[in-house]
């Protein structure tokens, strides 16, 4: 096995920022807004770096798709311990319509090119909340998938994954190469220490175009409109169950 792990990292609006919808309802305001690495991607990077520290794998490669700015996110992954980065260049215009399917195609192509043993992604991004990229990537590669991982044990030729599911925890054993997606409790990501930030400067980030990987970026989806969720109205207090039933009938709910 190559001992190489590919980790996808996405640059998203920082979780603490108050999101605002653009006046033309075409999307959310991103200009001048603080961006950071998607929290689930941080967990994915941490897991890969821990595997390397335990000498279970040899190299961690951080990948991000997008315009120039995503290099910041790749650098953060490098500062956390990834060995090198790959920036898949996507113009700002194309980035607006870039979705899980195109990213999965890119990751699948890269995984083959890099002979990756594992792909670790965050379970979802906090902007799109799609929760599709990991699963699609596995399908395109015809690899097994261990999603919503809260515990990962890498052994020779396979991975044991404890998954967080609705009913509790499910433990599966899948062969490598495989795709894993990180859930919240998988680990606590380390802070990039200052010495590691300095070391990250020397690590390489390669530039790749989607066309070089044979991937078409055209999307079959089109965002028609983006709106804020409806404002929460004040509630009404009722005295009895009969009142409650009456009010619900009035509102046409039952």
């Amino acid at each position, binding site marked *: 096995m190559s001992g190489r792990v590919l980790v996808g990292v996405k640059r998203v609006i920082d979780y603490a920022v108050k999101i605002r919808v653009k006046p033309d309802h075409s999307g959310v305001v991103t200009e*001048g807004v*603080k961006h950071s690495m998607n929290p689930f991607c941080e967990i994915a990077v941490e897991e890969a770096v821990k595997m390397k520290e335990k000498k279970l794998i040899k190299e961690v490669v951080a990948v991000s798709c997008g315009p120039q700015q995503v290099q910041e996110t790749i650098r953060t992954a490098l500062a956390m311990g990834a060995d090198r980065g790959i920036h898949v260049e996507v113009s700002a215009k194309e980035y607006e319509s870039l979705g899980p399917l195109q990213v999965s195609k890119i990751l699948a192509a890269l995984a083959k090119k890099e002979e990756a043993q594992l792909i670790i992604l965050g379970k979802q991004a906090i902007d799109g909340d799609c929760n599709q990229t990991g699963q699609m990537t596995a399908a395109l590669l015809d690899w097994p998938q261990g999603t919503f991982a809260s515990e990962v044990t890498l052994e020779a030729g396979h991975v044991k994954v404890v998954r967080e599911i609705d009913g509790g925890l499910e433990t599966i054993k899948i062969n490598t190469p495989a795709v894993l997606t990180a859930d919240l409790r998988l680990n606590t990501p380390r802070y990039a*220490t*200052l*010495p*590691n930030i*300095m070391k*990250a400067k020397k690590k390489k980030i390669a530039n790749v175009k989607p066309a070089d990987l044979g991937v078409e970026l055209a999307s079959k989806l089109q965002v028609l409109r983006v709106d804020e969720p409806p404002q929460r109205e004040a509630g009404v207090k009722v005295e009895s169950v009969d009142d409650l039933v009456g009010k619900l009938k009035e509102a046409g709910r039952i």
Partner: protein
Amino acid sequence: MLTCWASRHPCVPWAALRSRSTASLPDVPSQQPPAVSFAPLQTFSEEEGMMREAVQKYARDCIAPYVSKMDEESAMDPAVIKSLFDQGLMGIEIDPEYGGTGSTFFSSILVIEELAKVDASVAVLCDIQNTLINTLLSNLGTPQQKEQYLSRLSTDTVGSFCLSEAEAGSDAFALKTRAEKHKDYYVINGSKMWISNAEHAGVFLVMANVDPAAGYRGITCFMVDRDTEGMAIGKKENKLGLRASSTCPLNFDNVKVPEKNILGQVGHGYKYAIGMLNEGRIGIAAQMLGVAQGCFDHTIPYTQQRIQFGQRIFDFQGLQHQISHVATQIEAARLLTYNAARLKEAGRPFIKEACMAKYFTSEVATLTTSKCIEWMGGVGFTKDYPIEKYYRDCKIGTIYEGTTNIQLSTMAKYIDKEYDH
């Protein structure tokens, strides 16, 4: 919104007007820098930007939860000190060869500012270590001394700078601590006061006089390890602010220090002290800047949420004018501080500017914190909100590492020289 001023002025391109607050990294496509560029003062290298973000996150997650408790108990949590070392924040300019980060003075300034936004006491611990102790060792240490101390200072040992005494504050060179020479060692007798970090320090840089007859030209810098016999660390002061930072008197009773523990040359200690304090005061400026900004950052959201007379209190013109005035002062303080740091890094004269930065930012911190309490109203006056701590913490800014009056007198000397033809 594109604004074209009078027809004489060309319309300014959109990118130049976009606000560049330090709180957020703008999402702009990177543009090719012009051939000769004079970047705004608030321009950071990629690594400086990453460090600032990393420290912001770390301070928010690892220090903020302890701040209140450390203030109440007047004690720094050892876990916090350890995490400062683990993050590489205690050896920012130290060479990686000695386990340090190998970064620049400006990075130290950014780190101190970010730490101070969360806790001024943690910031001062980091400031003293980086701008005083590490700098002195790096600049003056013999290879053996660097070998012995630098890797400890960057990984697990806190340092203390011991100059002041009960009778020697601003008049530092009136210090009375004596060092008597014997063969290959010195015997130190005397006491020091107001020594920061003393409770946790593993090494003390002690200024003592080897030849009182020579006045200040006898002052020499000795490196004294913590458990040296005869050295006693007194009870820490019960302070108004910076309570988590230990401030203790030290007593030296026939403390033997080997000759090889002299830092630099005998009788040159006064020079080193002045030199280091010139740089240290930029660090204090960064600390006061962080105190002002941190306090401000906690207060404005409150003014946006608090409704009185049917509107946000932020919307009252009276409040807006006060807030804008304070924001301007903070911006000016920031520019003074960053510029002083960049001047020093560029090897240009910076002492007058460093004094200005320290003097101005400490005054701005006092103004800001005081105003913030007022804007918060009653809750600003309670310990349930973090504002009152900033108010208490800022006061020492006009006092330590050179009082405001000393800064002003120093500046005057430079101004006098400038106009002296």
